[in-house]
C-alpha cells in the first residue's frame, strides 16, 4: 500500500511554502516550548512537539489538505507554519498561521496566509474560509484583519476554550 505524503509547493515574493518534514523539528519544538504557543495548545514538551509535527503530515493524508512549513527565501530559515486546517472538533475549514520567534512584524503571516487562501479557493475550489482566533490573541486578530476577514461568531473549543470565528472574504472578493 502506498500512502502519499504530498503537499504542493507554493511560492510568494519572500517565502516558500513546502510540506513539513523532520528538518523543521527543532524550530517547531522551540516554538511549541515558547510562550508564543500559549494560544495554540502550548507550551508543549519536545515529545508532544514531535507528535504535533507528525500530525501535520498526517493531516494531509486524512483530509487531503493541511499546513505548510514557511521558509524565508533569503535565509532559508523556517519561520512558521501556515495553511488549511480541520481537525475533528473544528467548526469549519480553517486558515491558520503560527509564526515562530523572531519572524513576526514582517507581514509573513499575511503573505503566507494569502497564498494558502488562494490555494483553497483556486485549486481546492472552496467557497468560504474561516480563521479561529483565541480571545486575547491580538497579533493573530490583526493578521485576520489585514487579510480582510471579519468577526463572524463566538465558538468554544473543547481544548482551547473561548475563541472567535473570523470569516474571510469569498473567492470573488479575493480573486
Amino acid at each position, binding site marked *: 500500500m502506498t500512502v502519499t505524503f504530498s503537499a504542493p509547493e507554493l511560492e510568494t515574493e519572500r517565502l516558500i511554502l513546502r510540506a513539513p518534514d523532520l528538518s523543521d523539528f527543532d524550530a517547531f*519544538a522551540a516554538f511549541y516550548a515558547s510562550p508564543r504557543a500559549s494560544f495554540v495548545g502550548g507550551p508543549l514538551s519536545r515529545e508532544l512537539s*514531535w507528535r504535533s509535527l507528525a500530525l501535520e503530515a498526517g493531516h494531509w493524508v486524512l483530509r487531503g489538505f493541511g499546513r505548510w512549513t514557511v521558509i524565508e527565501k533569503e535565509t532559508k530559515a523556517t519561520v512558521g507554519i501556515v495553511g488549511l486546517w480541520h481537525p475533528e472538533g473544528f467548526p469549519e475549514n480553517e486558515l491558520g498561521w503560527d509564526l515562530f520567534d523572531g519572524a513576526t512584524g514582517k507581514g509573513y503571516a499575511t503573505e503566507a496566509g494569502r497564498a494558502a487562501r488562494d490555494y483553497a479557493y483556486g485549486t481546492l475550489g472552496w467557497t468560504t474560509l474561516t480563521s479561529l482566533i483565541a480571545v486575547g490573541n491580538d497579533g493573530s486578530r490583526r493578521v485576520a484583519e489585514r487579510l480582510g476577514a471579519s468577526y463572524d461568531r463566538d465558538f468554544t473549543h473543547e481544548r482551547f476554550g473561548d475563541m472567535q470565528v473570523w470569516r474571510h472574504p469569498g473567492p470573488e472578493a479575493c480573486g
Partner: protein
Amino acid sequence: MSHTTIPTIETQRLVLRGPQPEDYPNFKATFASYRSRFMGGPLNPYEAWMLYAAEIGHWDIRGFGMWMIHDKDSDDTYGMAGGWQPAGWPEREIAWIIWPDKAGKGYALEATHAVRAHYYANGWDGAVSYLDPMNLDSIRLAERLGATKDKTAQTIDGSDAVYRHPSPDALDGTQLAHGIEMEIGHYADPMFKPKGWALD
C-alpha cells in the same frame, strides 16, 4: 514529504495495513475509553483525531510506524500494532493497542509477532516496549513475546518499565519462536476455547 510505502503484512487470521481515514472511528472509540489509560488516554475527540493524524505522520517522518490490524475475512479492525519512536523515546519501540471488545483472541500476540518479524527482516537488530508498570495485560503480552524487563535500559521518563525483545537470532528457529507460534496457532484454531480471563 514523500511517497511512503506502507507494506501489507498477512498472518494466519489478520492483515495489517497502513491506517486509513475510514478506520478512524474505532480508534476514536478506544481512545475515548478507559482502555487507553496506559497510552495517554482517555482523550477527547480533538485529541484523539490529532493522535490518529500523528500515527499516520509517524510513517512519513520515521519511515516506519503503526499498522491497522484487520480481520483477513471480514476486514473489521481489531487495533493497531507496529513501531513507534517519537522524540524522547530512547529506542525503537514495538507497540500495540487492541480495541476493548476485541481482547482475548490473541490478536495482539499474532500482530506484534508479525510486525517484529517484519522489522527484524528489514534491519532492526532489536526493539523494546515501554510499558506502564500497572499495565498488566501488556506486560503479560510482552512476556509471551519473549521480552524481558531490562532494568538498566533508559526509560522515557522514569515512570515506565522497559521490556527488551529477544534479538533476531533468539527468534530464528528457536524453542521460543516455536512456542509463540504454537500459542498463536491455538488462538487461530476454531476448536481452541481458552478458559480463564481474556488475554490480548
